């Protein structure tokens, strides 16, 4: 599926999502990188040891869930925009999902935007919690959105405007 449509399957996603137990402990990274390509900035950006060292530049990234503190440093360093951070403890009904977003206009905090799935289909309106666009992020801003706990595995993108 991924190879023909660009959309990962349930099983592929399950393999890169942290366990329920880990999610409940606090913010953590989800790296949707399924193909061995020569690339390692996620590891070089990581200060906490959460992305394990690469033996070879073509290795897939692997996450040490004990060490990852969900700091978000790796998100904007990924050339494939394949990384997000989920804070499951953010609210009893919502997770805080932080995703890279390279389109303009950027949303503003408290704006409502359309949550899209990995097919680009509309899932649900979601509210923006914060927008970071510092020089260090080098034109890959990070948007945090509040996503209902039932849909955090489904939503992976947003559309700004015309809801």
């Amino acid at each position, binding site marked *: 599926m991924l190879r023909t449509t*660009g959309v990962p399957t349930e099983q592929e996603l399950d393999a890169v999502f942290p366990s329920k137990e880990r999610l409940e402990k606090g913010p953590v990274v989800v790296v949707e990188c*399924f193909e*061995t*390509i*020569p690339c390692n900035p996620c590891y*070089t950006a990581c200060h906490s040891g959460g992305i394990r060292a690469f033996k*070879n530049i073509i290795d897939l990234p692997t996450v040490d869930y004990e060490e990852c503190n969900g700091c978000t440093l790796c998100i904007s360093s*990924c*050339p494939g*925009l394949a990384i997000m951070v989920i804070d499951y403890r953010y609210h009893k009904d919502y997770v805080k999902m932080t995703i890279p977003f390279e389109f303009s206009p950027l949303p503003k905090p408290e704006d409502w935007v359309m949550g899209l799935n990995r097919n680009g289909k509309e899932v649900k309106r979601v509210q923006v919690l914060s927008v970071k666009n510092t020089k260090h992020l080098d034109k890959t801003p990070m948007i945090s959105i509040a996503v209902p706990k039932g849909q955090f595995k489904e939503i992976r993108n947003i559309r700004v405007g015309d809801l």
Partner: protein
Amino acid sequence: MIRRDILVIGGGPSGLCAAIAAAKSGATVLLVERSKYLGGQLVKQTHMFFGSEKQYASKRGIDIGKTLAEEVTSHENIKILTDTTALGIYEDGVVTLEQRKNQEEIYIKVRPKSIIVGTGALEKSLPFPNNDLPGIYGAGAVQTLMNEYLVKPGNRVLMVGAGNIGLIISYQLLQAGVEVAGIIDASSNIGGYLVHASKIRRSGVPILTGYTIVKAEGENHLEKATIAKVDQNWKPIPGTEKEMDVDVICISVGLTPSSAFFWQGGCDMEYVRELGGYVPKRNKYLQTTVENIYVAGDSAGIEEASSAMVEGSIAGLAASHDLGLVYEAYDQEMEELLQELQALRGGEKGGHVRKGYEKAGL
């Protein structure tokens, strides 16, 4: 007559790195670039690069181009001629150039001791009815219009080709506010990096593998494209046609190495499908069968800009070394570069390229 140790033809990623490496190891360099700016295709590449920190991973191509151009410009051993086209290599070792200056064309002769050719690649096209209608572009033209001239190529695009270039340009079209109606590829799989495919897909752009373009239609400009499923022999299957209302078709079906200088220079050439066409045979230091002609970047075989940069550095160091110039760090730096190149060609995606380089190797 200009006399220099090394002439570098092409100011793209490979040529810039070749000039830097040759100059720092003691050679005097003349760098010739056809366009007004240094950077080659990097000047249009607004996306972040893959690779490792050494090849500027997670930096944007456009910024990498600027960094390399600044380094080249500030180096006292490097003389730069922009707006200058290399015309030919002659039997006596003279290379002729045409420089455009103040609306005049100046004819220049150079006698370098060695030549590094980093002339990049040419786009392939596709034959289909009405493929000359206005609105049908090569991917390079779309990227030039959009990212260099800040002009939208149209409003609704059909992208033909799901390799990295097709995927990246589709993403850049979306960023420019242009609708991408779909990406098709005759192959049964997406050829480009899956992370690129996924990020476009989650913006709602369909990727249709196993589809080809059948025809284009329109009165004075493109109005409609017809696509169809292909069978195992890549022939359209009757009855599977779909019509799409688009005003742009962007053809992104691969590149072929720009090899004219190697033919002229008398290098042994080999047709290597995996590298995109005819390429010069070369050793691991990128020296061709003509001992003072070296090759680097896409003109050596179609690959990524990260490997083009490493190849440029290898060719630059080697050319300078072979002239007998002493550079103390040569052994160590060369070893590191050769390892970097091997690492970049690792993995599933690198298999194709590895096979190609075996065929082209001496």
